[in-house]
């Protein structure tokens, strides 16, 4: 069975429950849904906002490629990734990943795989804006994110 795959990049917020309902509409063999939401932290109150930049075109293509790979590895019924761009305040959503399958393990694994690769392979960059008005600079990539990929190889 071919998995339903939905990838979106948008400035506006998303509603987790509405996205799950829309993604799963008519998929009656789905018995498990895993969702992951990534939120903007306040960094102990120092952060005013994150600014998310992306490479239009490649960002969508790359996330879809990762989702296709996840769908080839696990028997999922649907996969969804929504990534916001632009200015995002602490407490707001940044990213949503949804994975559904007949039984739970495939949904857990596919969601983690999609999220791990999205972080290090999809062309997005975060810049910090601090509450004192200064630019906090670009967020550095973490070695722990690269390590997270190795468990899938």
């Amino acid at each position: 069975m071919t998995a339903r795959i939905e990838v979106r990049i948008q400035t506006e917020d998303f509603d987790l429950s509405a996205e799950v309902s829309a993604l799963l509409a008519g998929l009656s063999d789905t018995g498990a849904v895993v969702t992951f939401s990534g939120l903007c932290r306040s960094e102990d109150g120092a952060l005013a906002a994150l600014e998310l930049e992306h490479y239009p075109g490649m960002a969508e293509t790359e996330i879809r490629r990762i989702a296709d790979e996840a769908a080839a590895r696990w028997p999922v019924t649907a996969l969804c990734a929504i990534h916001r761009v632009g200015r995002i305040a602490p407490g707001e959503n940044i990213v949503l990943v949804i994975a559904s399958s007949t039984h739970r393990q495939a949904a857990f694994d596919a969601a983690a795989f999609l999220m791990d690769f999205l972080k290090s392979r999809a062309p997005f960059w975060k810049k910090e804006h601090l509450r004192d008005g200064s630019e906090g600079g670009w967020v550095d990539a973490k070695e722990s994110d690269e390590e997270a990929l190795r468990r899938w190889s």
Partner: protein
Amino acid sequence: MKLIYFAWVRERVGKAEEELDLPAEVRTVRDLLVWLKGQGDGYEAALEHPEAIRVAINQEHSRHDEPLAGAREIALFPPMTGG
């Protein structure tokens, strides 16, 4: 050749994209990074550590030893920090 820059590479170069005529001896991604670094202060600052720069050819991730042949659009950017 169309070159596109993102995040701090864009800020240091001082522009988001440009059309450049590459010399014939620039054949690989690594050649491009080394040549571009010598094109002025902004490029020098952006490409101070060329090995850290990620490159996409025609919107696909590329290794530094890959040839530029067939490239229409080359993007240079820092390691990604999405999610």
